[in-house]
């Protein structure tokens, strides 16, 4: 009465440049409902980390509580992980990041975890520009407690219970923009072609990168009347263009017709190429991004893709001027330089 994943993999699937096979980025078999959008996001994270040649043990995945926050068990089984307290993923991540800034911090949260109980934490981690990727798996309902409307459920949207939500929804992308996130994107779990390059870009972004992924709850919120169901989302997508992620040091061989694409250069020199709607608006302008979200919303559509990108973003460590070495790597001598240094310091204050 249980099921396991066979250990065999495709004989022709290769290893990446770091020498790892895809299996080394996988986690345990998912126990979420069959067809859950979250599993697609897990798969996209696995693929992104594999493609970027990241060492699994140099990643920390941290989550709160909820269906979304269970997913770190299902990807990157060899990475560090902390399934923390409801809504408190940001502060746990902040603590970890302060101690060891050399890891990649992958925060995974849900709409309940971020937009309800953890809204305060969500706001402040963005404000502090913590160097992390913050992924919200947004299904508009509380799947783990039988599907009640969450704070991101759109007004008028009705899930399996058939009762439309009476409140307006919180748009986490707009909040992230307002609070100063360096990279803001919205994706759909059913569109990996877009999701994977954006996750890669978010990983490469310095400072805070936010991705709101609409991820249908097949069990409680996949009705034709729900604005977070597969059908509705597919019918109302307005993508900001096809996206290619081009790693640093790769010769750009794709030939884009002039005016049809624009490149966004990321912190380490890698690039995102956006095709279609290339002349839309200035991606580095918060005002334009806000405008764009609102304009598309008025048309009852969902704007997906890269919404905002700040090429000059910094991170908390830079702002508070910590030393270059990760704090957990400092030796006792460096941390406690001795009574002579203390006496000297005290003397300066006299």
């Amino acid at each position, binding site marked *: *009465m249980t099921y396991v*994943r066979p*250990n*065999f993999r495709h*004989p022709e699937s290769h290893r990446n440049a770091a020498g790892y096979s895809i299996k080394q980025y996988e986690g345990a078999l998912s126990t979420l409902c069959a*067809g859950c959008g979250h599993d*697609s996001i897990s798969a996209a994270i696995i693929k992104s980390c594999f493609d970027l040649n990241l060492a699994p043990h140099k990643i920390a995945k941290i989550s709160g509580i909820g269906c979304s926050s269970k997913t770190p068990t299902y990807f990157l089984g060899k990475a560090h992980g902390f399934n923390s307290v409801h809504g408190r993923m940001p502060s746990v991540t902040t603590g970890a990041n302060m101690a060891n800034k050399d890891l990649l911090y992958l925060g995974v949260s849900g709409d309940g975890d971020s937009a309800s109980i953890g809204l305060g934490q969500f706001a402040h981690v963005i404000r502090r520009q913590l160097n992390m990727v913050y992924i919200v798996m947004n299904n508009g309902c509380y799947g783990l407690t039988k599907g009640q409307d969450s704070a991101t459920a759109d007004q008028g949207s009705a899930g399996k219970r058939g009762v439309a939500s009476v409140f307006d929804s919180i748009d986490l992308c707009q909040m992230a923009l307002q609070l100063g996130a360096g990279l803001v994107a919205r994706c759909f779990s059913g569109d990996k072609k877009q999701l994977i390059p954006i996750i890669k870009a978010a990983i490469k972004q310095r400072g805070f990168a936010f991705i709101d992924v609409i991820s249908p709850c097949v069990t409680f919120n996949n009705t034709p009347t729900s604005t977070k169901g*597969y059908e509705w989302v597919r019918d109302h997508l307005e993508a900001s263009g096809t996206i290619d992620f081009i790693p640093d040091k790769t010769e750009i061989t794709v030939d884009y017709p002039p005016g049809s694409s624009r490149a966004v250069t990321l912190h380490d020199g890698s690039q995102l190429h956006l095709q279609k709607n290339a002349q839309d608006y200035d991606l580095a302008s918060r005002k334009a991004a806000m405008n764009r979200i609102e304009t598309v919303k008025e048309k009852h559509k969902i704007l997906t893709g890269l919404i905002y990108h700040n090429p000059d973003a910094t991170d908390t460590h830079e702002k508070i001027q910590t030393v270059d070495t990760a704090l957990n790597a400092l030796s006792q001598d460096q941390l406690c330089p001795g009574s002579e240094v203390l006496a000297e310091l005290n003397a300066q204050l006299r």
Partner: protein
Amino acid sequence: MKPTDISDPDYFHKVVDCQYACPSHTPVPEYIRLIAAGRFNDAYMINWQSNVFPGVLGRTCDRPCEPACRRGRVDEEPVAICRLKRVAADNKTDIRDRLPEIPKQKNGKKVALIGGGPASLTVARDLMPLGYDIDLYDDQHKGGGFMRSQIPAFRLPETVLDEEVNYILDMGVVTHFNQEVTSLKSILEKKYDAVFVGTGAPRGRDLPDLPGRKEGGANIHIGINWLASVAFEHIHKIGKKVLVLGGGNTAMDCCRTAIRLGGEDVRVVVRSPKSDMKASPWEIEDAVHEDIPIYENHNPKAFITEQGRLVGMLFDVVEPVFDDKGKRTLVSTGEEVMMPCDDVLMAIGQLNSFPWIERDIGIEFNDWDMPEVDKTTFQTSLPQVFIGGDAAWGPENVITAVAHGHQAAISIDKHCHSEDVLDRPAPDVNLVSQKMGFHDWLYDVHVSDDARHIVPLQDKKAAIADRKLEVEKGFDFSQGYEEAMRCLNCDVQTVFETDRCIECDACEDICPVDCINFIDNNTEDNLREQLKVKATNLDQDLYVSDTLKTKRVMVKDENVCLHCGLCAERCPTGAWDMKKFLLHTATAASNRRKK
């Protein structure tokens, strides 16, 4: 690409690689599951139905199924299908009550079988339950043909062969043993409704023009004749130094028999490089295990005799040279090697030979003096004469002879009922969902990760000391179970229903071997290039769905699908289901029985 037509039985049949590769199309995964369940009689009967000689084949089959096995593509080695068949045969109880009933009221048709080997016996097996009167002619004293005369007892105990031959003869076949048929005309004059010729390829190739062939003749033997003489106990010993010429399975049987009859320095000598030897790898392995050396690239030049007695052979050492087109020629290096010997066994090929078929009775012969036989019906130009087994197109193997026998029986039955022999009956096909409940399937999806299990052998010394001691002990029950659990259950098909799919990608994400793709439709060549993992194995089909809501299609590369059922397990709408595909090839009169 057009959507795949899964109603065509051939599509899913091809996915069951082992069954498809088997000339008799035995439902392999089905009987392997029965073995794992300890249902040996059921497993045996599925085999018996399809390949007639499970005990014999479980020891001696050429195993075309194993190189085809999907496990061999995802793991180091295929499932030991052949030796699992033996587990069923070894562990069964008395199955005689399951054999078909033979009608007391005959149908009035008489058939003659010439030759008592696997092809003829299969024809008898298929026709006796339909009420035919059958006469079987063979020059040996018992049935079984080459299975008896050429497969040494240390590979196939006589009791196993007798048992399976007798299941058929006991149906009431009238046997005429020790009777060599020297004229087909005289058989035809007996007014049979049909005659089946299954006389094998009885003539071993010789090297008549090699110097010294005549002088040393007393100690130069044709391999197959020599093996027959050993089997029938006319020969009990051989010289101390023996050379076996040839690199096929017969050569392996010859050398292994020779060391059991007193050969001390037995060598296999082949013209070509070892890698080009025709023998099955496992038969070469068995010979090597018994410390028999194989000399490659030695081309026979002369038999050396002294005072009318064979004392050795002279070989020309050659090397393979490949031209631009990859064609190989063996070029002499100029070096000569002389190997002393007491006896030479020649196992360098076999030929058909039909001196006993008169050329004026209406059977057409081709330019190579072989009778013209239809590839589908096995009929000759004389409508009541059918030819199958090695006799049809030269040496193959037991399982191919059985497959010929089944097809010939269909033709004979149709011929006797004045039906069109070219109208072939369709196979019996069944496709049933295996879903039982939540995470619960009718088949065991937990496949073992173990490497292929090795069949235990007798102590080497004891085995070589006794010609009749079977070398392989066979898997015991628990080893058989462990090996059976390596089977991927390729007959449990992934069946996709386009209308139910909501394109949540769950199947694509969970598939451990990345064989499921949701992409824009294209030509087959382009699709093969564009899949997540390129579909480079052109022998394996792509399963393409109808157009989905997003205008994409589901494309599944069948190549390394593990049939683990995770796609169906993770599908929220039941668009994927695991359905067991069971195909039984048609047998004689199956079309009439259904009516």
